Each structure stands twice: as structure tokens, then as C-alpha cells.
């Protein structure tokens, strides 16, 4: 068995003295693992880092085997991301979300989005909104997509500011007013076609929304908890946004 594809490295694990087990998100074959012989060598270690895009050749005698990868670097993002707390925690969060998907199950949309997010992960002004959208997309790919296009009660596409925690469908301001305390706020950047970005409050609301549905549909049924990196990412992001925001005018 043999194939060639490109992928984004999610993690590496030491294997023996010289090799590593590489976990990658590939374009056409989803999340895939394989062994890289000599992966701990001085030549290969720098590019076998999470966040880097690599060209992969996978080979195994049988399809169900772990197999071996031969990897060549295409795009080295890790060095750029290392300095940013938001970026490294974000990278671990994205990898944790992709681990919710079954292995070797292609998700081209997630792969393309992952590449786009990694390019902007060290930019705190957009990283939060991108990762929050990614979480909604992961829910969608797992079969628990939210309907944020129109109001569940009236069908209107305007003034959608809530999401029903029961149905995962958007609710307009007018229809949701009587149950406002029971509904989840919908930040504007999560709506289809909306501009990416938001302040700390909107980002926190987006993560509360996606976190609620991830917990309900994924974490709780599987008996797992949200990854630690998700909380660290949000904390680092809010800290970065606070430090970037201009000081309030005196008086």
C-alpha cells in the first residue's frame, strides 16, 4: 500500500531512539499516523514540528498497519508560532479538536481551514474568531452542526443574536426576548458571511457557545473533558487582546 499527499503536522511522539510517530492532518486522508524513521535526527527534527506543512509518502504492507512516512518540508510555520502563547496553545487546541474525528476519515474543509488558521494564529485580533469558527465546523463535521442562518421561531435572517441551547438554531432578538436569560448569545462574527474578528467579550461568548455544544454532543457522551489547551488559549488570547487595546482616554 502506498500513497502521496500533503499534510499539516499535529503532533509527534518519540518512538525508540531514532524514530517518531507522526500525527498529521492530510488533505485527502484525514488524520493519519505513521512512523518516520530517523525522525529524531538533527536534519529532520526542525521540520517535524506541529503546524508545519509537509509532503508525505506513506507506505505499508497492509492498509490497516501504522506504516511509515517519508516527509519533506513545504511550509515551516512552527518557528513563527513558538513565540506567541496564543499560537502554541491554539495549535494544541486545534490538534485536540481534530483528534475527535476518526482516523483516516477525510475532511477537506477542515484541512483547508486548518491551514488558513495556522497562517494567522499568532495574530490575536483574528485567532480567537477563527478558532471559534473552527470549533463550530468540527461540530458540523461530527454531525452536530448548528443552524445559524435563520431564526428557528420566525424564519427571519435579520438580527440573529441568540442560539437555542436545545436545538442549536439561531434565534432573532425579537423572538428570543422572553427567554433571553436561557438562550446563548450569538456573536456576530459567527454568522455566515460576517467579518472575522471581535472584542474579548464576543470571543468569550463564542467559546461559551461552541464549548456548550462540544460538551453536550462530544465530551460528555465520550466521557472526556475539554482539552486544557482550550482554556489556556482563551486566557492567552484575552490577555493579548487586553494588552493590544488602546488605553481608555483619561477623564
Amino acid at each position, binding site marked *: 500500500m502506498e500513497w502521496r499527499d500533503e499534510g499539516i503536522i499535529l*503532533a509527534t*511522539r518519540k518512538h525508540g531512539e531514532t524514530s517518531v510517530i507522526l500525527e498529521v492532518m492530510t488533505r485527502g486522508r484525514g488524520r493519519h499516523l505513521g512512523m518516520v524513521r530517523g525522525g529524531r535526527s538533527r536534519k529532520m527534527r526542525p521540520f517535524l514540528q506541529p503546524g*508545519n506543512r509537509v509532503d508525505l509518502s506513506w507506505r505499508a504492507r497492509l492498509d490497516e498497519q501504522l506504516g511509515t512516512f517519508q516527509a519533506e518540508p513545504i511550509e515551516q510555520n*512552527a*518557528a513563527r508560532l*513558538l513565540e506567541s*502563547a496564543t499560537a502554541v*496553545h491554539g495549535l494544541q487546541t486545534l490538534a485536540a479538536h481534530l483528534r475527535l474525528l476518526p482516523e483516516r476519515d477525510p475532511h477537506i474543509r477542515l484541512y483547508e481551514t486548518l491551514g488558513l488558521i495556522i497562517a494567522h494564529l499568532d495574530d490575536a485580533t483574528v485567532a480567537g474568531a477563527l478558532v471559534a469558527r473552527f470549533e463550530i465546523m468540527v461540530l458540523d463535521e461530527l454531525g452536530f452542526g448548528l443552524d445559524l442562518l435563520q431564526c428557528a421561531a420566525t424564519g427571519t435572517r435579520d438580527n440573529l443574536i441568540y442560539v437555542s441551547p436545545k436545538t442549536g438554531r439561531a434565534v432573532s432578538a425579537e423572538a428570543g426576548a422572553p427567554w433571553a436569560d436561557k438562550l446563548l448569545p450569538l456573536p456576530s462574527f459567527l454568522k455566515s458571511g460576517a467579518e472575522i474578528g471581535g472584542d474579548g467579550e464576543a470571543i468569550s461568548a463564542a467559546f461559551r457557545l461552541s464549548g456548550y455544544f462540544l460538551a453536550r454532543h462530544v465530551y460528555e457522551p465520550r466521557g472526556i473533558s475539554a482539552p486544557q489547551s482550550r482554556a489556556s488559549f482563551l486566557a492567552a488570547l484575552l490577555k493579548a487582546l487586553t494588552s493590544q487595546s488602546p488605553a481608555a482616554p483619561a477623564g
Partner: protein
Amino acid sequence: MSKRIVGPEIEKLIQLLAKVPGLGPRSARRAALHLIKKKEQLLGPLTVAMGDALERVRICSRCGNIDTVDPCMICSDPRRDTGTIILVEDVSDLWALERAGAMNAQFHVLGGTLSPLDGVGPDDLNIRGLVSRVAEGGVSEVIIAVNATVEGQTTAHYVTDQLADMNVKITRLAHGVPVGGELDYLDEGTLTAALRSRTAF
């Protein structure tokens, strides 16, 4: 089925030696044969040394280093600067920095890095011990000397967050061109890191 050519004791010695890093079954056989040939000069003293190590080696309750005394010799050395702690992933990193002899500081061994794939979380590392040491007072700087990998830096940022409210300076090792390194032969990632952390000359 292959015929057994040595007794079970020697076979067991070979099997155990083959588990040592750097040794495979072939080199383990050579090492075992060498030890047996030098029974008096090598095998005997090695057995005694290993027995002593087994009996006396312990983890330092203060810094996580390996030594035969607790606290370890580094922690109990009065000539060391107690105001600076160098944070490392593993004892091998501590030994490497001590070989370099660049700083006469104290150390703190984390025992690994945050690794979701291996199931290593903050509670599995010696982070609480570091926070307690800094909270005791007298520490002015923590130098984070973890590997320049995504997992290493994730751990570094996590530790920085844990120490954020304490009155301590947090620094990290520079990333960039190694001594004797030629730019032409360096990977793009290292060059990017070197350019981003350039200093005034």
C-alpha cells in the same frame, strides 16, 4: 527453533543490556561478552556500583534532580546563586547545562513537557513545585530552558502564566544560529527564529 548456546544467566544479562539506550541485541551481546571476560576488573565493580545506585539514588524533593542525597548536591551547594532558577525538561538537560558551566544557578526539573498525544497534562509535571519555590521568596529570575519545540514552548508559556502574579523576572533561552553553524546549511525554521530574535550589535 534456534539452539541455545549460552546459559540462562548470560542470556538474561544480554537481554537486559539490550534495553539500554544505544545498545541493540548485537552490541548487548558484545558488551556482555566483554563484561564476562573482564569479570574481576569490570563486572564485579559494575555490579557493586549498580547495587549502590539502586539502593541510594533518589529524586530531589526540592528540584526533581537525580542524586544519592536529598536535597541534591546542587540544591545544597551554598556557593550557588539561589536567586536564579533554571527550568529544564529533564535531568539530561540539567547535566548538559552544567557541562556548559555558563551559570552558577539552581535548577528545577519539570520531568517532561505538556503533551496531549502522550496524555501528559500540567498535573503530571513538577510545575507546582516550581511555583512553591518561587512563592517562598528569594528568587529574582526564572530562566526557562526548555526545548525549542512546540510542546516545549507550550509548556514554557503555561509556566509563565503560573508565575505571572509573582514578582519574578522570567526569561528564556535564545533561539537561533548555533556556534559554528553555517547559514546555508540551517533549516528555514531556525533562520526565521534567529532573525526574529536578532539583537543590537
